[in-house]
C-alpha cells in the first residue's frame, strides 16, 4: 500500500469523497486519516458542513409562479407571432421594391446603349473652324494729366490739352502720372 502525504490527500480528496478513487488508493487514504489528526479533522469538517448545507430549508416557489409563467408564455408567443408576420410582410415589400428597381434598370438600358455601328458609318458634320485671337488689352488713349494735387489719395488721370499718352490702364489700378513737357507745335 502506497503511503500518501497530506498534500496528496488535499489534492485527491474529491475523488476519495465521491467514490471515484481506486480501492487500493482509497485504502491508503483511510490509513492516512487514521494516522493524521489534521487531515481527519479536515474530512470531518467537510462532511458535517455539507450535511448542514443539504439540510438547509429550501425556498418554496410563490403560489402564483405558474400563473405568472403562463402569462409570460402568452405574451412571448404573441410577440413571436407578431415578429413572424412582420418578417413575412417585410420580405414581401422587399421583393416588390427589388422588382421595381429591376424593371427600372432594364428600362434605362436602351437609352444608355450606344449604337456603335451607326457611329462608325455616319459622316459627322462639323462646323467650320474659326481662329479666335486671344484677347489683347485694349489701348487706352488719354491726355497727359496735370501735376497731381496732393489732397486726393489717388491720382486721377486727366487729359492734358495737347499731349497724349498711350498706355494700358488696368481696372482698379492707381495711376500716378507726371506729365511730360509741353510739346511745341511745329
Amino acid at each position, binding site marked *: 500500500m502506497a503511503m500518501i502525504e497530506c498534500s496528496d490527500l488535499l489534492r485527491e480528496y474529491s*475523488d476519495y469523497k465521491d467514490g471515484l478513487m481506486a480501492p487500493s488508493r482509497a485504502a491508503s487514504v483511510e490509513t492516512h486519516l487514521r494516522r493524521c489528526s489534521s487531515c481527519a479533522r479536515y474530512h470531518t469538517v467537510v462532511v458535517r458542513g455539507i450535511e448542514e448545507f443539504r439540510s438547509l430549508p429550501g425556498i418554496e416557489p410563490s403560489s402564483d409562479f405558474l400563473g405568472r409563467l403562463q402569462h409570460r408564455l402568452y405574451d412571448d408567443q404573441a410577440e413571436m407571432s407578431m415578429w413572424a408576420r412582420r418578417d413575412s410582410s417585410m420580405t414581401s415589400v422587399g421583393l416588390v421594391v427589388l422588382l421595381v428597381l429591376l424593371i427600372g434598370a432594364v428600362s434605362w438600358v436602351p437609352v444608355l446603349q450606344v449604337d456603335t455601328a451607326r457611329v462608325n458609318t455616319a459622316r459627322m458634320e462639323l462646323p467650320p473652324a474659326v481662329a479666335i485671337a486671344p484677347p489683347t488689352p485694349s489701348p487706352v488713349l488719354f491726355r497727359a494729366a496735370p501735376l497731381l494735387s496732393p489732397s486726393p489719395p489717388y491720382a486721377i488721370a486727366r487729359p492734358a490739352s495737347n499731349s497724349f499718352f498711350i498706355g494700358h490702364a488696368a481696372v482698379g489700378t492707381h495711376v500716378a502720372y507726371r506729365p511730360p513737357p509741353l510739346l511745341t507745335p511745329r
Partner: protein
Amino acid sequence: MALSGTDPTGFGAASEAKPTALDTLDDSGLVAAFLGGEKRAFTELVERYHGRLINFVYRTTGDRERSEDLVQETFIRVYRHLHRFDQSKKFSTWVYTIASNLAKNELRNRSRNPLILFQAIKRNWDADDRPLEWEDNTYRPDDLYRKRHLRQMVEAAVSKLPDHHRTVFILREMEGKTYEEIAEITDCNLGTVKSRLNRARNSFAQIVEPMLQ
C-alpha cells in the same frame, strides 16, 4: 389553474384534471409527448423542475425574488426551443444549463453594480427575513444557538465562494449532479470540474471549521 380551451400555449393544466399518464412518464417521455401535441406535458415538466431550479438559482445568486424571474425565463426559453432539443440528451442537464447561464449572466451584470449586489445579499441574509423554523425542544439553548449559527455560517460560506466554484459546489452537493453532468452544464472539462470542486470544498471547510469545534 383551470384548463383553458383557448389557451394557445396549452399550459394551463389543473393538477386534478391532467391525465395520470403524464405523471408516469419520464422526462424524455414528456418531451416527446409535448412535441407530439400534448401541451399539458410542458406543465408537468415545469412542476417537476421549478422548485429545484429556484433553489439552485437562489443558492447561486443569493436573490430570492430574482431567482423566480430567472427560472421563469428558463422555462420560456425551454418552451421556445424544445423543438430543437436533442432528445438523446438528458432534459435535466439541458434545463439546468439554461438556468446556470442565466444565473451566471445575473452575477456578471450585478458585479458591474456593487450596490445592487450588496443590497441583494443583505436582504437575503438579514435574520428578520429568515423563515420561522420549528426548534427541536431536546436541544439546549446553547446548542440551538450553535446550530442556528452553524447554518448561518454554512450559508455564508457558500455565498463567499467564487462564482464558478459556488456553481459547481451547489450542483454537486445540493443537486447531486455527477461530474459529467456538471461538466456539461458549466461547459467545462472534467478536470476543471474536479479542480473547482476541490477548491470549493477546501474554502468551505476553512470557513465553517471554527463552528464545528
